[in-house]
């Protein structure tokens, strides 16, 4: 156990945890931040995704010690019910997801993609999302959401 300082959604949090403990469990158990979810613990599915310095990372395999000193953003930190992030607005507009258990990965990876590449081609979009699993098969709505989010982020209506 050791004390670590984490910057999450713009706020600093002090935690006592094993430096090798994956960030996922620190967020969930120490800080009651529930959005990143355990899917596989192997980095294979993306249900535990958070943004670290704007990049989508798998919190289930990222040791706490490698997360300290970085800007972490969780799904909840992206937008609020009153002011959803355009990516969230797009996913809501398209009524994406069945169970939604996987959605941290899709929403946050889309945000990271569009920040870097505001006009992804179909192939670029698919490639950026390839490492994610949606067991329910909501991909058609997900793709529509990504395209819609790209429009919204460019200020389109």
């Amino acid at each position, binding site marked *: 156990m050791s004390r670590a300082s984490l910057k999450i959604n713009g706020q600093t949090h002090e935690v006592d945890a094993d430096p090798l403990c994956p960030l996922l469990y620190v967020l969930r158990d120490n800080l009651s931040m*529930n959005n990143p979810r355990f899917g596989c613990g192997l980095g294979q599915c993306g249900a535990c995704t958070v943004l670290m310095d704007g990049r989508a990372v798998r919190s289930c395999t990222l040791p706490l010690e490698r997360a300290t000193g970085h800007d972490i953003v969780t799904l*909840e930190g992206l937008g609020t*019910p009153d002011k959803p992030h355009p990516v969230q607005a797009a996913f*809501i507009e398209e009524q994406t997801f069945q169970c939604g258990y*996987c959605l941290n990965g899709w*929403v946050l990876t889309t945000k990271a993609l569009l920040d870097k590449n505001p006009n992804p081609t179909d192939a670029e979009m698919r490639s950026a*999302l390839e490492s994610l699993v949606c067991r329910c098969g909501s991909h*058609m709505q997900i793709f529509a959401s990504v395209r819609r989010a790209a429009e919204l982020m460019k200020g389109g209506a």
Partner: protein
Amino acid sequence: MAPRSISRRDFVKETGGLVIGFSIASSTIVPRLLAADALTSVATPSPARLDSWLRLDKSGTIRVFTGKPEIGMGVETAFKQIVAEELDMSPDHVEIIMADTALTTNQGGVGGSTSIMLGAKPLRNAAANARYLLTQLASQRLGLPADQLEIKNGIVSVRGDASKSVSYADLAGGSDLNDALKVTGDGFSLDVEGPGKPKDPSQYTVVGKSLPRVDIAPKVLGKWQYVVDVRVPGMVHARVIRPSGVGATLVHVDDSAAKQIAGYQQTVVKGNFVGVVAQNEWAAIQAAKAVKVTWTPPKQSFPEQSDLYKHMRTVAPKATKETHKLGDAETAIAGAAKKVEASYEFPFQSHATMGPGCAVADVHTDGITTVWSGGQKPHDLQKGFAELLHVDRDKVRVIWVEDAGSYGRPGFEDTAADAVILSQAIGKPVRVQWMRDDMHAWGAKGPAVLCDMSAGLSANGEVSALKFTSIAFSGGDIMFRPDAAGNYLGAQLTGIPNTTGVDEFAQFGSNTPPYSFPNLHAVAHVVPAFYGVASPLRTTHLRDPEGPATSFAVESFMDELAVAAGIDPIEIRIRYIDEKRAHAVLKAAAEKAGWDSRTSPRKSAASGDVATGRGVALGTRNGTYVGTIAEVEVNRKTGVVRVTRFICAHDCGLIINPEAVRTTIAANLIQSMSRTLHEEVTFDRDNVTSVDWRSYPVSRASEIPAQIDVVLINHPEIPSSGAGEPSSRPTPAAIANAVFDATGVRIRRGPLTPVRVKAALAAQEQHG
């Protein structure tokens, strides 16, 4: 509108008081939150009382109590619409409380795509009776007969004089809505009846509209609570350690290394059940790796995987059922001008839920127990856990909280049983989450199915006879209703025998026979499980149980018959099914697809590596009709099959929420495409070896079709049938038929992996 909470007091009178249940109020997003409390005896509400179904509060909000959970397809929103419709009020003022044994009637839980078809019936009838009662109250209040009143938006007013009115909110204090209802059926078929009769569907204004699903916005905004997020005071975390293979028994446990891990508390051993308990989740995960468990060698109960279908053919069936016998198919086939024969094989498949099972259980020493689980049938769990704990059923409360999409019985009930066993052992609330390999390897499986088909045709291509024989593992090796202690994996490991299995057959036209022939003989055999207790290959319901497997056979074979008869694949289907709705879905799909009527395979085969084709399949299931067309590309070099477009026409009678149905169907198509192209449980002699997303791959972004067209056929005059799973059924055959159309090669074993397709193409070349 501000979020409302259900006050404890609301429930104290009847339930002994207990829950704090928040729901989503229109514009404000609040997580569904459920908390534990001390409880004495909390009996499931009686369906004979109106207030067991609906309660009106003084703000004019109707709370609806249903034993049905949501499993990700939007039924909560549909229920809202159905109740709001009957009460002529805004759906924003309807809240749905789902599946809590202390608060909701026992409607059997989720199963068989029946939540709207059956589960909504008592909600509709209860709402109609609430409307009747409220109209009576308004009539007294306004001093005019009920037939002079009208209701709009929750306000009862005098027809022609809106100034004389009284709102539901005003009426709320006037009655307890506790009128007696006549109850019929139970569980899934539970229904109620009273003097208030539901509206004629032609009057609907809310039902049939694509209201946004109540759960999507809060989920996307990170404000939703899943069962993995339930925390109760004093809760500890646990992981389970399973046997080293099928039939292995415990010899010795050494937890000395685990004791070095900060937060480790104890290892619980009960027979062959091993659970590791720690203060936090990370400690539990590490400790479960550190605990050394010695097992006896496994039983080697499984055959080599390559011998699976051979085994199924040679082992004696444990049960046989003749499902269809019309005329004399054998004789007709023997004497036919043309005979067609083929066999089809479909593997064990995993539910492979997005989240592994997770549950929290709090078992007190006096037996009073609360369990939070995402399993589909909470009232069954209540009964099973009461048996497991040897306590009265009313002492056990099961609270459903949404989990990852379950698609049957993936193991969520087993996880909950693990939590119950552990909490009872250590006297604390325990949260258990399975690791990924626990879920993939030890979660229950959809059964492997093989079907032998034969048919006879006359010289002019008329099909005179068809014979169907299936050989399958039971769809109910553990009973699909998890209401007995012996049903749960953990309980079996503690030594409780699996006495709950039933023989469920892979039937010709499971639920709805698709075709009629002058001579038809259909027989189904169930073969014994490899190992009867706590087997990683125990079989149970997976989305549309046996449907995709038997349809893969029947609908591929129909294509083979079309080839033999020299006719178009849609034409042969229409010829042998005398159902207008089946014809309609086939025709609607064909029209949308721009189907060119011709025989398969495609004659103008491209000369390059990539061949294209299209295939069709029909699905009929409990009143729902599905016509699916798949357009595919087959890479002859790599064997990779890619679906470029699906067209699916779907008729489930009255549609409650078209957009929710459309997205559910699109998701069904992708999931069943994944099952068709990739999914196969792998195993060695002792163990399941497909244990994660690498060894059990599913479809990912790169292979999602460019386009999916869903054509919804609405029949307001026909009561709703299911939409949750019927569109999973025709997909495997639609794809396999398209591969044949593209290449002339018929793949009769699923999944259609590149290796298999490539081998089949190579064999074709060899044999010319």
